[in-house]
């Protein structure tokens, strides 16, 4: 029985990522997964307004962080302060990759 999902992890240790790369990949993710034509999206846009409006959005973003950046997201990490904007998510990922 494999009821407990296997969360995909990618090992990125060989290719350290800079903040600009992380931020750009996050922005691309939000444009693709949460399209909002006509609404501005910048690194400081409040994601909890138009983008991450339900828990499914938070779940999908968390799974993206884990699979794309190989970070380990725990119960203490899934909080509004980390998901507020692309800037905050970038801080969070960068902090996890280079503690």
């Amino acid at each position, binding site marked *: 029985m494999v009821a407990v999902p296997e*969360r995909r992890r990618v090992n990125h240790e060989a290719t350290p990522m800079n903040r600009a790369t992380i931020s750009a990949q996050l922005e691309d993710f939000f444009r693709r997964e949460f399209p909002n*034509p*006509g609404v501005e999206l910048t690194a400081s846009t409040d994601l909890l307004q138009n983008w991450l409006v*339900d828990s*499914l959005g938070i779940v999908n973003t968390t*799974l993206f962080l884990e699979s794309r950046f190989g970070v380990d997201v*725990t119960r203490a990490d*899934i*909080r509004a302060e980390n998901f507020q904007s692309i800037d905050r998510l970038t801080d969070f990922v960068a902090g996890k990759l280079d503690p």
Partner: protein
Amino acid sequence: MQRLAIEYLIHTKDRFSDKAAIVDADGHVTFAELWRRALSLAHHLGRAVDGRDVPIVIDLPKCVDAVVALVAVQLIGQIYVPFDPATPAARRRRMLDTLGEHHIIGRDESGLHVDGHSVDATATGDGMAEERVRAALNARNSIDPLYIIFTSGTTGTPKGVTISNASVIDYIDWAATTYRVSETEVIGNQAPLFFDNSVLDLYLTFAKGCTLHLIPPERFLFLPEMLDYLEEERVSLIFFVPSVFANIASLDLLAEYALPDLRKILFAGEPMPVNTLKYLRQRLPHALLSNLYGPTEITVDAIYWIFGEEIDSLRAVPLGVPCANTRIIFVDERGEPVPDGGAHAEICVAGAGVALGYWNDPQRTTEVFIQNPEHRRYHDIVYKTGDLGYRSADDGLIYMTGRKDNQIKHMGYRIELEDIEHALESLHGVTQSAVHYDTEHKELIAFYCSTNGAELSDPRRRLAEQLPPYMLPRRFHLLPAIPTTPNGKIDRRRIWQDYGGGA
């Protein structure tokens, strides 16, 4: 003999007077305080409201005040109508028009108001006199309406499902017995008051003297915050929509929570994914797991199942067996009864929970509340759910296979796709539309045509002026034309086939 749902609270307010009854983000009220505050609001409400069977809108977020309000409405012998305060103005207007004569309980910084006038509804204010309460309650009986809950309609105008006191009493007595609920229960509420799953939480609390936690909705956005709440408050019973559990399972959040106090997990509102059910059993082996099924029109639930050892071998999640005082009938496309249903048989519900119909809407009422097709010997009303299903020959349980129309469930919310299409087609420039629900990604996707072939700018924000947030499509695709079937109807399957994946 109990006639009115409010009688539950009349008994428990004395037995459990100093115990916390309702808890929200701002604090809690005891049973005695809840009663006093409701008497106080009823005192003002009684002066504003005249006549029999008058709907009183509760235009409040989920909070202690909202519970005070729905008790106060019962004390003056009227019908409460929980509204989603986020309902956009135009939709709200249509709902109020459907109600006809009505009053509104709302709130601003200074406190509660009735029809815009501030009222003192604190525990120390003047209360409605006991003999006046008695007179108001004596004038009502068990088949009088208790509440009206609105649900999405295909015409774009929501329908007001009208439920009697008797139906709620029957349902709550069944639930209290089936789930062995006593005053030791700490209930964690997820459903907003305008979604009838909250009826179980509220009236079990009133009936048994439980403590009800109205978990702040924002905690359901970041699920660890919700799980922290269950852990800290030692919640013992929850009745949530399956989406919440599916999201918990996707992140395997229960690996970090033991939740030893959580003994009863109930779910309803949409199909429970089989892997999510197995996940819950694996992570919370000590908890009772129960699936429930029922549209608002039959009073919360008509079918239920408590899972046992069979979970491991399940390939689909059954709805289960009928609740007490409920009978399930299957009918085919021609309306003829078919004993055990089938892939294209509609589930119909007969019994104590069947609603009084749709408020002020005899036409839509007679379309779905029909004479039991099995006989014509006496007046026997069954509700046609629109859900398709059958009773399995293998385990004797009822299973659901789909819908006969375009109603979907999104995060537990019941939505008629036509309701969204009506709103979309009212936007300037949109000539035709078709909304699809992608069940795999749980996304609403809108396809539309426009007069000059121009793309809509900022469609989500414009639709938000007409639809509640959970009905807003995630993606919008402009099409040159909407494909139709030979008889001219929108060909929903072809739209998704042609434009779905790569669009």
